[in-house]
C-alpha cells in the first residue's frame, strides 16, 4: 500500500524556503528549455508560413538560397510556358520572375547596420502570395523606382516609413507602402519592380521563378519536365514550403542545438539542487521514515513516496517555467537568417508539444535528482532511523 499522497504533498510545503529555492531553479531551467524550443519553432513557423502549398519555386541547382541562384531570362520565360503552370484569366502564366539582392539599412536604437532582402517581383507576385497584404499606403507602380517594405523593417529600421527615400543600387527609392506578411519572412523584405531592381544592380539574370501549379499534384510532372529539358536542366524545382523550411533549418537548428546544450548544463545544476533538497528532506525526516517502516510500510513505498515528492517538485517547476515562457510569445526578435544572410524577424511560438516536452524534461530532472535520495530513504535501517533525533 502506498504512503498517502497528502503526506508527500504537505511534506513538500513543510519546508517552504528550501522548496521555494529549489522550485526557482527548476522553474528557470524549464523556462529556458521551453523558450529555446519556442524560439526554434518561431523561426520554422515564420519560414513555413512564407510558402504556399500549391506554389513551386525554381532555382539554379545546388543554390542554397535565392541570393545565390541565377536563372537566365530566356530560360525563365520558357519555364513559365510549361503546361503544369496555372494560367490567369487573361491567359498569361501565373508566375513571377524575381530577383533577390541584399542591401544595408541602419537599425533604430542601436544604429547598427542590418542586412535587408530586396525582392524584385513581377506583377503576378502579389496574387501568388495572398498572405502578403497592404497595411498602409499603396503598392509600388511598375516601371518606377518605388518600393514597399515589410512591417518588421518599418518597425525596426531607420528611415523606413512611407514617403522616406532610401538609397541603394546607385539610386534613390521611395517607400510608398507597408505590407503585412502575417508573420512570414516577407515581413522582413523590401519589394519593388524586378526590372527596375535588376537594372539598378546591373544584373542580367533572375534569381528565381515562382509559379502557381495547376494543382498541387502537377509538381512531379513539372519536376520531370524541368529535369529532362536541356534548356532548363540546370535548375531545380521545389515546393515553396519545402524550400522555406530548408531555409530555416540552419538557423532553427543552431538555436535549438546551442539552446539545448546550455539548458542541459543548467539542468545539471538544477538536478543537483533538487538532489540536495531531497537529501535534506530525507535527513530531516529520518525518524518519520523509521516510523513508517516500523508500522509496516515497505521499502518500495518509501522509495515511491520520496520519488513522487521530487517529481512533484520538478513538475511544479516545469509548469511555472512553461507559464513564464508563454509570456515570451509576446516578444518578437530579429536576427540574421543564415539561409539568406538578411534580417529575419520572428517570435517565440508556443505549441502543445513544447509544453509536453518541457514537462517531460521536468519529470526527468525530478527522477534523476530524486532517485538517489529516495533510495537512501528506502534503505535506512529502521532502528537507526527511529533513534535519530
Amino acid at each position, binding site marked *: *500500500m*502506498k*504512503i*498517502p499522497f*497528502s*503526506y508527500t504533498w*504537505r*511534506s513538500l510545503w*513543510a519546508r517552504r524556503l528550501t522548496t521555494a529555492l529549489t522550485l526557482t531553479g527548476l522553474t528557470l531551467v524549464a523556462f529556458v528549455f521551453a523558450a529555446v524550443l519556442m524560439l526554434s519553432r518561431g523561426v520554422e513557423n515564420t519560414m513555413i508560413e512564407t510558402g504556399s502549398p500549391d506554389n513551386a519555386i525554381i532555382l539554379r541547382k545546388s543554390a542554397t538560397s535565392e541570393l545565390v541562384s541565377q536563372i537566365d531570362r530566356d530560360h525563365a520565360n520558357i519555364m513559365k510556358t510549361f503546361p503544369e503552370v496555372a494560367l490567369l484569366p487573361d491567359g498569361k502564366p501565373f508566375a513571377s520572375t524575381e530577383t533577390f539582392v541584399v542591401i544595408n539599412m541602419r537599425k533604430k536604437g542601436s544604429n547598427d547596420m542590418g542586412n535587408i532582402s530586396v525582392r524584385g517581383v513581377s506583377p503576378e507576385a502579389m496574387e501568388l502570395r495572398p498572405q502578403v497584404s497592404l497595411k498602409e499606403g499603396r503598392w509600388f507602380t511598375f516601371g518606377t523606382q518605388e518600393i514597399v517594405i515589410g512591417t518588421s523593417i518599418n518597425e525596426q529600421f531607420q528611415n523606413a516609413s512611407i514617403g522616406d527615400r532610401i538609397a541603394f543600387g546607385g539610386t534613390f527609392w521611395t517607400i510608398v507602402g507597408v505590407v503585412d506578411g502575417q508573420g512570414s519572412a516577407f515581413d522582413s523584405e523590401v519589394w519593388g519592380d524586378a526590372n527596375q531592381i535588376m537594372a539598378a544592380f546591373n544584373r542580367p539574370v533572375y534569381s528565381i521563378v515562382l509559379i502557381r501549379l495547376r494543382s498541387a499534384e502537377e509538381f512531379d510532372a513539372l519536376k520531370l519536365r524541368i529535369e529532362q529539358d536541356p534548356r532548363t536542366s540546370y535548375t531545380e524545382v521545389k515546393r515553396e514550403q519545402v524550400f522555406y523550411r530548408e531555409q530555416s533549418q540552419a538557423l532553427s537548428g543552431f538555436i535549438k542545438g546551442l539552446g539545448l546544450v546550455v539548458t542541459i548544463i543548467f539542468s545539471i545544476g538544477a538536478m543537483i539542487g533538487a538532489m540536495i533538497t531531497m537529501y535534506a528532506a530525507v535527513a530531516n525526516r529520518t*525518524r*518519520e521514515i*523509521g*516510523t*513508517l*517502516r*516500523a*508500522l*509496516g*510500510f*515497505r*521499502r518500495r513505498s518509501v522509495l515511491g513516496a520520496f520519488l513522487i515528492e521530487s517529481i512533484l517538485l520538478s513538475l511544479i517547476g516545469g509548469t511555472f517555467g512553461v507559464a513564464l515562457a508563454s509570456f515570451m510569445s509576446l516578444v518578437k526578435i530579429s536576427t540574421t537568417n543564415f539561409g539568406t544572410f538578411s534580417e529575419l524577424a520572428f517570435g517565440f511560438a508556443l505549441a502543445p508539444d513544447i509544453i509536453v516536452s518541457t514537462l517531460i524534461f521536468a519529470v526527468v530532472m525530478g527522477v534523476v535528482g530524486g532517485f538517489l535520495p529516495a533510495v537512501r530513504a528506502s534503505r535506512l535501517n*529502521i*532502528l537507526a532511523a*527511529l533513534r535519530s533525533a
Partner: protein
Amino acid sequence: MIEVRNVSKSYRRDSLRVPVLNNITISVPDGEFLALMGPSGSGKTTLLNLIAGIDRPDDGSIEVNGTNVAALSESALAQWRANNVGFIFQFYNLLPVLTAFENVELPLLLTNLPKKKRREHVEAALTLVGLADRMGHYPKQLSGGQEQRVAIARALVTDPTVLVADEPTGDLDRVSAGEVMTLLDRLNKEFKKTIVMVTHDPRAAEKAHKVMHLDKGELT
C-alpha cells in the same frame, strides 16, 4: 502467546562486538501486561525491538502466536508488523504533516479496509483515547499527553496481537503519564491486549502484571 527462546544479540561498534542480550528465554501469555526494566544499556529496548520484529536475533527464536518472526523475509516481516504489532514510542513519532485522524488511519492503509470502515475504526480508536474532538488537529496543536494518546490510538486501531511500548511516559509530565498508564491499563484489562512495555518509571511499571529486570543482557 510470545515465546522468546535462547535469544542472543550483539552489535558491532567499530571493530568491537558488543553483546546486548545473552541467551534470553521468556514467555508472555496472551493478555499479559509485561514491564521490562533495567539500567540503560541492559538490553531491554533491544528485546522489545526483537519481539516487535524491527530487529533480528543472532541466535534463538521468537514466536508470536506460532509465527517464527526471525525467519520471515524483509517484506513478509513488514506485513507481519502491520497485522500484529502496535507501536507506542517515547517521543510519540506522529507524522507532523498529518492530522490526528490521518496519523491514526496510517496503519489501516496497509489493510484492505474500505474508506468508510477505516473512518469508523479511526473514530472508535480516537474516542477510546478521549480525543474524538481533536481529530482534525495536527500534532503541534496537541499537548505531549494528547500526542501520546493519538499514538496509542494509532497502535491499537488495527487490533494488533501485541502492543509494544518503549518508555511511553518518558517524555511526559506526571499527570499526562498517569493518564497514559491508565489508558494502557484499561486496554489490557478491558480489551485483553497483550502489552510489552519498556520503562524506567516505577510508577508506570506498577500497572504491569509482571515486571522483568534485565542487566547486562541477562534477566535478573
